[in-house]
C-alpha cells in the first residue's frame, strides 16, 4: 500500500463522518454532562468532541468488553452450545496514538501464538481513525518515552493531523483505504506546504512533555530481579487493591471466566476483566497463593510492564505512556513514579564504585 496524504477540510468533516456512520457504528470522544470526556458510541457526528486533551477512559472496552459472552448453553435435557460473538462494524474516531499503539500491542498478544477468536473478530470489524496530539499533552502523558506517540508512523488505519481549518488525512492500511474510498471525493490533494506544516507540529509536540519515565533503567533492574523485595513491599503497602490501574491501562488484557445463569434458565459463559493487583488473581484452590503479598503483586504488574523478557516476547514493553495509571491511582503508584522510585532507591543499594559511575 502506497502511503499518501490528502486534506479533509473541517467544513467537510460533518458530511464525511455522517456518511461513514451509514456504514458502521461510530465510537468517539464524547463530552458528558459532568464535563468529562469519554469514548462512547456517537449518535450524531456533532457529538464528536474533537477538542480534548486526554481521555481518562481508553477505548479498550470496544475491542475487549468489560463483560463478554463467549457462548450460551442449555443443560436441561440436551446440551446445546451456541457461540455468541457477533461484532458489528465500527470506527473509532479521534483515538490517540498511545491508544492505537496499545491496540496493536493487544492485537499481537491476542493473535500469538494462539488466536483469540473474539478479539480478532472485534478488531477485524474496527477501523481506527487516529488523531495526532498537537494540543499540549497533559502533565501525566509520556508516550514520547514509550515510542507510542504523539503521532504514529504506522499502526493506524487513518491518521488525522489538525492543521487549523483542515485535517491532513493519511491512510495507513488496507482497512483504512476501504473505509476512505466511498468518501474519497471529499478529500483534496495535500500540498508540500501541508506536509511541512505537519512536520513543524511534530517538532513542537516533542518538546512539550513534562513527565519523563526512566523505563530503561527500570528494565535492567526489574528484568534481573535486582529490585529488593523491601522496595516492592514499600510500594505495595500503599496500594488499595482497587484495580483502577489495570482497568484503565489500555495495554492490560487479563480476564476471568464465569458461568452465569440467565433468567430463562439458560447459561452464559462470560469473560470479564480481572486484575493482577487482586489477591484472588493467583490464589489456587488448595489455598496456596504464589503471590501472597501486596508487594509481590505490584512487582508482578511492573515486571509485565517493563521486563526485558516481555519485550522479547511481545515486541515492545507493556506501557504506551498514556499516564492513566497516574491519574487513576489514589496513591500515585503510576508507572513513571514507580520506575523513578526504583531508580532512586536502587541507587542506595549500589556499591560505592558503581554509584560514582551512576551520577
Amino acid at each position: 500500500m502506497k502511503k499518501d496524504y490528502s486534506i479533509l477540510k473541517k467544513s467537510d468533516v460533518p458530511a464525511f463522518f455522517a456518511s461513514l456512520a451509514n456504514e458502521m457504528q461510530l465510537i468517539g470522544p464524547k463530552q458528558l454532562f459532568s464535563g468529562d470526556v469519554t469514548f462512547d458510541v456517537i449518535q450524531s457526528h456533532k457529538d464528536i468532541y474533537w477538542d480534548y486533551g486526554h481521555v481518562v477512559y481508553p477505548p479498550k472496552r470496544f475491542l475487549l468488553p468489560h463483560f463478554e459472552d463467549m457462548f450460551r448453553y442449555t443443560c436441561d435435557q440436551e446440551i446445546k452450545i451456541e457461540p455468541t460473538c457477533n461484532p458489528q462494524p465500527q470506527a473509532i474516531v479521534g483515538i490517540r496514538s498511545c491508544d492505537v499503539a496499545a491496540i496493536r500491542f493487544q492485537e499481537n498478544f491476542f493473535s500469538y501464538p494462539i488466536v483469540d477468536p473474539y478479539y480478532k473478530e472485534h478488531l477485524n470489524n474496527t477501523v481506527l481513525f487516529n488523531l495526532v496530539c498537537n494540543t499540549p499533552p497533559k502533565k501525566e502523558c509520556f508516550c514520547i518515552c514509550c515510542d507510542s506517540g504523539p503521532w504514529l508512523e504506522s499502526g493506524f488505519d487513518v491518521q488525522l493531523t489538525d492543521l487549523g481549518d483542515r485535517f491532513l488525512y493519511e491512510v495507513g492500511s488496507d482497512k483504512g483505504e476501504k473505509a476512505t474510498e466511498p468518501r474519497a471525493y471529499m478529500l483534496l490533494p495535500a500540498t508540500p506546504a501541508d506536509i511541512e506544516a505537519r512536520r513543524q507540529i511534530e517538532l513542537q509536540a516533542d518538546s512539550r512533555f513534562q513527565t519523563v519515565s526512566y523505563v530503561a533503567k527500570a528494565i535492567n533492574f526489574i528484568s534481573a530481579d535486582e529490585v529488593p523485595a523491601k522496595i516492592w513491599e514499600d510500594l505495595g503497602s500503599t496500594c488499595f487493591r482497587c484495580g483502577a490501574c489495570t482497568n484503565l491501562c489500555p495495554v492490560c488484557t487479563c480476564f476471568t471466566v464465569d458461568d452465569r445463569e440467565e433468567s430463562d434458565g439458560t447459561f452464559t459463559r462470560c469473560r470479564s476483566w480481572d486484575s493482577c493487583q487482586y489477591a484472588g488473581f493467583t490464589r489456587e484452590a488448595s489455598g496456596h497463593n504464589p503471590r501472597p503479598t501486596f508487594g509481590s503483586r505490584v512487582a508482578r504488574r511492573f515486571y509485565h510492564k517493563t521486563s526485558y523478557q516481555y519485550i522479547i516476547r511481545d515486541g515492545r514493553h507493556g506501557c504506551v505512556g498514556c499516564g492513566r495509571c497516574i491519574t487513576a491511582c489514589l496513591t500515585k503508584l503510576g508507572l513513571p513514579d514507580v520506575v523513578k522510585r526504583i531508580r532512586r532507591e536502587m541507587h542506595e543499594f549500589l556499591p560505592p564504585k558503581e554509584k560514582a559511575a551512576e551520577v
Partner: protein
Amino acid sequence: MVLTPARPRRMWGVTDQPSANLYVPMIAIVQEIIDETPDTKTFRLAFEDKEYAKSFEWEPGQFVEVTVFGAGEAPIGFASDPNERSFFEITVVERGKVTRAMHALKKGDKVGIRGPFGNCWPLEDMKGKNVLIVSGGCGLAPLRPAILQILANRKEYGNFLLLYGARTPADRNYKYDLDAWAKRDDMQVLETVDVGDESWKGNVGVVTTLFDKVKVDGENTVALTCGPPIMIKFVTLELLKMGFSADRIVTSQERYMKCGVGKCGHCCINHVYLCTEGPVFTYAQMKELFELKL
C-alpha cells in the same frame, strides 16, 4: 544430557482445533466413576462424537479444561493410560464450585472438554536413564500416565523407583495400582503417610524421609515430581544434595487457570504462560523464572 519438556504433538488451538472457536468445549460422557479417597474421584470419560474421539490424542503431563454445565470450568490433568484411545480418565479432588459439581455427576452425565493443553513429561529424552518418581497426594494423578507409559515400554528405561506420600492411609490415590505396582519386580514402590493408623505397617513421615531408605544414582537418574509446592521445594533440595543436576529434576507446576490458551493471564510466571509453555518444567528452567525461586 539436556532435558526439555517438549511441546507435544497435539495442543488444542495450535494443531488440533475441532471447532472454529477454541473456547467452545466438546461434549464427553461420564462412563464410570471410581471413588479414590474421601474427597477424590476418578472419572472415565468418552467423547460423544466418535470421529473426534478417534482423533483425540494426548501425552502424559498434559491437561484438559473440564466444563460442568451450569457450574463452570476447571483445569484437570489426564490420569489414565495414553495408549487407551476409547476413553480417558481424570482424577478430581473436591475443592470448590466446579469440582463440587463434578463430584455430584452420575454415570451417563455430560461434561465439556477443551484440550489437550500444555506440554508433557520428557519421556522420550529419558530413555536409557533410571527413573525416580516422587509424588505427594493427588500429585500422583498427572504422573500416572507417565508411569503407565514407562511400564508399557519398560525395557527402554533403567531402574524405576516410585516414592509416594499421602496424608493418611485413607488418602492414598490409586490404591489398586499402588498395590499391583508394589508386586512387580521391574519397579520399586515405597510409600509413606504423614499420619498412620492401626492398619498402616509402612513408613510414617513426609515423603523426603523415604530418601534415606533407597539408593539412587544421582548421576544417571531423572526425577519426576508433582505434589504440593512445599513438597516440591524440599524434594528438589534433597535431589540436588543427591547429585541430580538441575536439568534432570522435572516438575509439574500448578497455577490458578481460566483459559488454558495463554490469554487470561492467571497462570503466568514471569513471562512464561504455564498453560501453553508448562506445566512441566525442569529445575534448570525454573531457576530462570525468579517467581519460582525455591
